[in-house]
């Protein structure tokens, strides 16, 4: 407790202020009395006896204006009764008396933070004032219309409910009037006017205890009121603020699940079917392309086969012309044979003629030439042997060699022809070649009668061969030195032409 003069903290054991010395004994009693009335008002407010709470709290404040709790509670009670301005007035005064740590500031802020509701309550008060004026002027119907709106806008405005009930009662609408009074008693349980009007409405005065029972009984009776044509049924506002966000989250999740299910069962199948259709179309297109390509491949294969056959035929034809058995080759062989025949190389001609297929010669002239040469070269080995012998005796060793070679072609076992061919070789070629031929002769004909003679000839040729070689090399060296000397002198070489080694003997 603080001093009412200097606002200093008082000592509980002293009747005087320790700071300013003021007599606070009576002040203590006053404060206690104020608190007592505040407690009464609090108890009444708890049981919604708003009228009684207002009286107690006003008494408390009239005793001690600094009773902040009583003033704040009074403001709350006024606000509950619909008297917004009176409530704000008490809270503002309370805040001015105690600026710090005052719950009145919270109440004021809540009202200011909800301007829509404040405006609604203000409009309700204005309409109530208008309807009161109508009622005082005698325009009951107008007043009733306005009051109905007021009750809708602010159901807790006690004065409006009482006035409406009174006017309805005056108009003879006792049931609706009773409803109005009962609605007032819901807000202000022990509202004197409402209780009185109800008792008058029922037509009898009730005691204190009986009043309560009668009120309860009447309440039980009116729980099933009769509805007349004049009744205006106001649907209760069933909107409730959600207690927490769990229901919101669950609702959202449920919506998501339903949306997903709708998509899965309605949208997805159509999408899948359209995709399948597109894929099928693509597959069909590729199949058509594949079929077309297959046809092209088949056509190309047949073309390849026909071209291959044609190529083979042409190759054959070409081979017929250019191959070993071709016409051009036959012509070539024929010409070569003719050339050998003209050169008296009958062996070579015979060999070439044997390679020619007369059936492949294209022209008759070629065939005639072939036949002529063939006839000339025919006769077998004996004929060529005889001609060779004749040419040998005439010392025409070259022709004789040809004849003997031709004879050997006909008869490879004719050792006489081979022997005389060796003699011709010895006469035509050098000793080295003759020795080689004789050795080959001995290899082919080891049992021949001419073997001894051939061996003797080989020995004789070999005997002459080294001397001939040394002399030939010496002569060649002398010629080279003379040539070099003449060259340094600027003259022309004058060496004698070199002959074979036989001249050295």
């Amino acid at each position, binding site marked *: 407790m603080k001093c*009412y003069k200097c606002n200093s903290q008082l000592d509980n054991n002293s009747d005087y202020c320790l700071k300013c010395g003021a*007599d606070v004994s*009576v*002040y203590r009693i*006053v404060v206690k*009395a*104020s608190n007592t009335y505040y407690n009464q008002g609090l108890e009444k407010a708890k049981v919604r006896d708003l009228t009684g709470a207002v009286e107690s709290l006003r008494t408390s*404040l*009239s*005793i*001690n*204006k*600094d009773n902040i709790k009583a003033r704040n509670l009074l403001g709350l009670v006024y606000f509950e009764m*619909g*008297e*917004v*301005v*009176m409530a*704000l*007035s*008490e809270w*503002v*005064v309370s805040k001015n008396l105690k600026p710090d740590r005052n719950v009145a500031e919270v109440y004021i802020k809540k009202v200011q933070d909800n301007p829509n509701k*404040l405006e609604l309550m*203000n409009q309700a*008060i*204005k309409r*109530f*004032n208008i309807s*009161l*004026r109508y*009622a*005082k002027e005698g325009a009951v119907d107008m007043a009733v219309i306005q009051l109905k709106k007021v009750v809708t806008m602010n159901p807790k*405005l006690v*004065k409006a409910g*009482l*006035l409406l009930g*009174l006017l309805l*009662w*005056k108009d003879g609408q006792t049931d609706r009037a009773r409803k109005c009074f009962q609605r007032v008693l819901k807000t202000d349980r022990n509202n004197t*006017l409402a209780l*009185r*009007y109800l008792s*008058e409405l029922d037509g009898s005065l009730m005691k204190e205890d009986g009043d309560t029972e009668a009120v309860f009984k009447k309440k039980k009776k009116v729980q099933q009121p009769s509805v007349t044509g004049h009744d205006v049924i106001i649907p209760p506002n069933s909107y409730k603020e959600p207690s927490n966000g769990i229901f919101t989250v669950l609702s959202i999740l449920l919506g998501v699940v339903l949306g997903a299910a709708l998509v899965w069962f309605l949208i997805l199948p159509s999408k899948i079917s359209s995709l399948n259709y597109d894929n099928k179309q693509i597959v069909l297109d590729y199949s058509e392309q594949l079929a077309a390509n297959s046809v092209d491949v088949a056509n190309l294969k047949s073309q390849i086969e026909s071209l291959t056959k044609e190529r083979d035929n042409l190759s054959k034809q070409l081979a017929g012309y250019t191959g070993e058995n071709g016409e051009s080759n036959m012509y070539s062989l024929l010409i070569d044979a003719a050339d050998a025949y003209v050169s008296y190389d009958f062996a070579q001609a015979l060999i070439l003629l044997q390679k020619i297929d007369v059936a492949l010669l294209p022209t008759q002239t070629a065939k005639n030439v072939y036949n002529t040469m063939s006839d000339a070269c025919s006769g077998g080995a004996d004929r060529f042997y005889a001609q060779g012998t004749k040419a040998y005796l005439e010392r025409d060793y070259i022709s004789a060699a040809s004849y003997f070679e031709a004879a050997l072609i006909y008869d490879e076992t004719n050792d006489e022809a081979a022997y005389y061919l060796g003699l011709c070789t010895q006469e035509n070629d050098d000793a080295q070649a003759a020795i080689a031929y004789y050795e080959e002769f001995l290899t082919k004909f080891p049992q021949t009668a001419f073997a001894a003679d051939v061996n003797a000839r080989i020995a004789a040729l070999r005997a002459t061969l080294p001397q001939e070689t040394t002399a030939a090399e010496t002569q060649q060296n002398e010629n080279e030195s003379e040539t070099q000397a003449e060259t340094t002198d600027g003259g022309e070489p004058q060496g004698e032409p070199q002959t074979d080694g036989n001249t050295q003997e």
Partner: protein
Amino acid sequence: MIDFDEEIKKFQPSQEVDEAEDAIYGNNTIDVTDIIDKIITKTVESK
């Protein structure tokens, strides 16, 4: 019985928000403490 006219006369208009300023300034702030203080003061002055 209830006299409606008399009952209606008992109803007073409520203050609107526009009248809040006047209501705040007109709030009676005199209490018993002030009265006692005045009584004591007068008593002391009279002595």
